[in-house]
């Protein structure tokens, strides 16, 4: 049985259609991340799952029960908000027990539940403090505690880490992931940060303009993006996308900047030639920056898994862990990631190895993945 089913959900605010028919299904114990730029409808979708907003069409099912008409308190969910939404006049303990108080849970049981949750999140020392006396990270923990204490069917997170500083965000990211593994609950997590999506999710739903662009596991979303939006949204720096031409028969070749003196020919390791109907046509070629490295890097044991080319270097950005190189391939600007100790001279040409297995091809008209 699925822990959560979202079926054909539509929502309109005035003239603006913010959700255009969303279908998502989450298995029990999954960690689903809804990711997308601001305004893509991800928070509205989460509010609909929570019951804080009503969909115009479609339905929401939690643990096999259709809850579209059920008020939030009876959906057996817990939610963590971006601003934490801690009750400012209550102590941490009261914040955590408020939900149980509303449900008439006996005092002794409340105390046990608080003790258990506080131990799990290591906030025992904070229980008698008020939210204003806590740091951002501590508030975040208390907000988590308020959700955890209930042991709900479904956890909902609305950008819970975006108010934390970078270092704390990474720590809390790992903690939430560990927590998920330990308690095995189903979680739906909204974020605009594609790194959070990649690191935490069992499956990612990439949203844009009120529609799910791709719903798949992180590796698939990253390596085989369903369309150009996903390719450019996921990854930092994002996937390079350049115009290219498909030529050749059994051994297809992508030509970047065809006809130019500096044209680049990349043999594609596609089994059985180019996709049907695409021979000698223009495509958009996508390649991740990390699939372009300094010459001599080995990308795989089998023959033909990479090719070597020479390209002019326009700029380098040493980040410490690697050097990001901006180069031109057939006139098109492309980013590559080379080893940190490799510093190709700016203005000159350098040789690079390209992992051709990781090339994606997109239809320039529909922007959908073709191979």
């Amino acid at each position, binding site marked *: 049985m699925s822990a959560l089913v979202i079926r054909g959900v539509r929502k309109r605010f005035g003239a603006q259609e913010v959700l255009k028919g969303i279908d998502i299904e989450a298995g029990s114990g999954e960690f689903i991340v809804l990711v997308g730029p601001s305004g893509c409808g991800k928070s509205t979708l989460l509010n609909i799952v*929570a019951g804080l907003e009503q969909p115009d069409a479609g339905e929401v099912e939690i643990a096999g029960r259709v809850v579209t008409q059920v008020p939030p308190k009876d959906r057996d969910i817990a939610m963590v908000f971006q601003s934490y939404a801690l009750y400012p*006049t209550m102590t941490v303990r009261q914040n955590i027990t408020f*939900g149980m108080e509303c449900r008439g849970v006996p005092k002794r049981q409340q105390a046990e539940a608080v003790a258990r949750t506080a131990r799990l999140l290591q906030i025992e020392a904070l229980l008698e403090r008020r939210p204003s006396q806590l740091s951002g990270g501590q508030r975040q923990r208390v907000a988590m505690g308020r959700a955890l204490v209930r042991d709900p069917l479904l956890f909902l997170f609305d950008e819970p880490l975006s108010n934390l500083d970078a270092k704390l965000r990474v720590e809390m990211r790992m903690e939430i992931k560990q927590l998920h593994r330990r308690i095995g609950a189903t979680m739906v997590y909204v974020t605009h940060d594609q790194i959070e999506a990649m690191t935490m999710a069992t499956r990612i739903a990439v949203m844009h303009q009120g529609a799910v662009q791709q719903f798949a596991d992180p590796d698939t979303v990253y390596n085989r993006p369903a369309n150009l939006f996903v390719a450019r949204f996921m990854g930092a720096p994002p996937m390079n996308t350049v115009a290219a031409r498909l030529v050749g028969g059994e051994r297809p070749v992508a030509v970047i900047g065809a006809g130019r003196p500096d044209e680049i020919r990349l043999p594609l390791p596609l089994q059985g030639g180019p996709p049907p109907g695409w021979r000698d046509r223009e495509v958009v070629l996508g390649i991740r920056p990390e699939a372009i490295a300094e010459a001599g890097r080995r990308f795989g044991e089998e023959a033909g898994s990479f090719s070597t080319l020479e390209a002019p270097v326009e700029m380098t950005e040493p980040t410490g862990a690697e050097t990001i190189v901006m180069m031109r391939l057939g006139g098109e600007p492309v980013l590559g990631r080379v080893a940190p100790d490799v510093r190709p001279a700016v203005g000159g040409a350098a040789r690079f190895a390209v992992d051709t297995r990781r090339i994606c091809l997109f239809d320039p008209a529909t922007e959908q993945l073709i191979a």
Partner: protein
Amino acid sequence: MAEANAAALAPGVRSRLGRAVVYALLAGFAAFYLAPLVVVALNSVRTAQDIGATSVIGWPRALALDNFSRAWGSYCIAQSCAGIAPYMWNSFLLVVPATIISTLLGALNGYSIALWRFRGDNWVFGLVTLGVFLPEQMKLIPWVLVLRELGLTNSIGGLVLIHVVQGISFTTLFCRNYYVAIPPELLKAARIDGAGYFRIFWRIVLPLSPPILIVTVIWQFTHIWNEFLYGVTFTSGTQQPVTAALIALSVSVSEAPQYGVQSAAVLLAALPTLLVYLFGGKYFLRGLTAGAVK
């Protein structure tokens, strides 16, 4: 060199002079504004003979503090010689329930309008606050009819009803503008926690409200205490609030005018609102600006 010095000095001198002019003007206005209070305060400790011998403007020759005890407990107002004490009590019986009820209703209204969006909520808010702009005189006749229908003419209960209903406009306006600053996520969290309309109000919104409640209570208390038109129109005799009784006190004087006792009565009647301002003033200012800077 000397010229340069003079030139450098001139702006400083000019600004000091300007400041002196400003302070002199302010002091003049303050004195003008405070003059009636000073006259009343001085007269409240002068005997009738003292005032009669000179004029209502003058320094007391001796301190006649019994003016206050007479005004409070034994001076005759409209055939009743119990001073202003019973009327002060009337005012309290009127002000305390009217203030509490109108403030609570305003808080509840403000909470509903600010935090539970419903169809036409802005219209409801506009209609409620329209009451702020309607002059009191315009509402006299309607209230006469309403009080007669309810059997509340010449009663403190009737005045309480009037001030509760009329106060709702102001209290709703104050509270709604304070509550719109409460983040909506707080309510979402409470709804998921299982709290309903009244529990959210009681456990989350009301505990956040002391700054605005202090403002509304001070506003309502002083406004209702000082209100005169309805008091004098709808009540008479022993049912009158102190503001209406003060008038009766000044017109009932048949013999020599008792300016000393009357002044003392005026000061006593003004005391509660003065005390409210003295003790609540800083909260009043703080509350008015709360939410302005976030």
